[in-house]
């Protein structure tokens, strides 16, 4: 068993996750963060294509993987995430224990 995988971090809540999603998605899509509301739909409202969403997922995994060991988004789940709210809820749920060993 790895001995040095536990790092103390303050748990991330929905507001922090939303902030992270907005920051990263705004940079990827080169749009104003104000457009990225909870109810915004990725494809219809933000014109995010599948490659852009994978870019977002990989950046979230890299950032949040430092907090939750092995944090990972299953590609199969992506098809069910249509809005920013659904994505934030999904990430928060994974951080709470469903997406890796919580540190």
């Amino acid at each position, binding site marked *: 068993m790895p001995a040095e995988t536990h790092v103390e971090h303050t748990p991330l809540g929905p507001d922090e996750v939303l902030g992270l999603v907005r920051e990263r998605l705004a940079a990827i899509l*080169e749009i104003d963060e104000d457009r990225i509301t909870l109810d915004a739909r990725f494809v219809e409202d933000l014109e995010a*294509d599948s490659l852009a969403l*994978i*870019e977002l997922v990989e950046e979230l995994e890299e950032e949040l993987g430092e907090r939750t060991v092995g944090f990972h988004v299953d*590609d199969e789940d992506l098809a069910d995430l249509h809005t920013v709210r659904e994505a934030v809820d999904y990430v928060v749920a994974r951080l709470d224990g469903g997406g890796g060993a919580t540190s």
Partner: protein
Amino acid sequence: MADAPCTVAVDAMGGDRAPGEIVAGALEAATTLGVRILLHGRVEELRPLLPDPLPELMTLVDTRDVIAMDDEPLAAVRKQKDSSIVVCARAVRDGAADAMVSAGNTGAVTAAAVLRMKRFRGVPSPAIAVPIPVPGHHPQVLVDAGAVVDASPERLLLYAQMGGAYARARYGLDAPTIGLLSNGEESGKGDDLRRRSYQLLHSVPGFVGNVEGSDFMHAGRADVIVTDGFTGNVALKSMEGALRSLAGVVFGVLDATPETREAATVITPRLLEAAQVYDPDLTGGAVLLGVDGVCVISHGNSSARAVVSSVQLAADCVEAGAVRRMQEAVANAR
């Protein structure tokens, strides 16, 4: 002190004829082009194909995953992070290589380049630039040959800006002419996308208006031809099919009678020499425009000669600063 050689990451596992032809091409490139090759693939499959010791300008990089030609691109790049394609793209991102070459799954190469090298600012998705042969002349550049099926006028504007900068860097053109592919030369021709794009492209230096499919493979009308990825891919495949059909007719005639067969002994060598301009193995492959690094996509059936041409193209793009010039063209137009 001499300049360090350009370093090109080569995907040895991608392509219909991989790894044999890719390795053979990479070896030739490492020994004849003065380019350093980082050859990526499963070492146990590559080692028997290589001399011992390796050429001075070649390094073997062991990667365990292999993305197949028919794998779903995004899923493959996500799941197979230790694949030759993904690791090649990472080598460019990290500065270990100046450029990458792959004859593998085009969608996966595109996705890996975007995810690892990143798009440059102002470009929502990359485009594929393909050289279209023009006898006795530098090739035309077709953008987009199939990276993104749908396009907006704003995207076609980006393709024109990047395509023009690429043509300057690649072929040394001072003022490349740029045409919009449509179904007639008049400004009102085309569907809604073409008509709206026509208005936007007026701001691009060198824009000559609409061009037609019959303007491909001819010098004079446009050095760069811009269209959406769907139409571009259809146009490209149509040209390939037409050339194959024409070759079949010509060689059928030459083989028709004893007299024509005798004539063929004289004519065929000249025909084959003249037809080299159409040989996809010699054009150097396609270049991904809009990512922050040089990424050359060689055709799926690449031979060793095609790999050599693609490595040369990659090195030429690095030397010419093609990526920087495209970035500047997009940034200056913003």
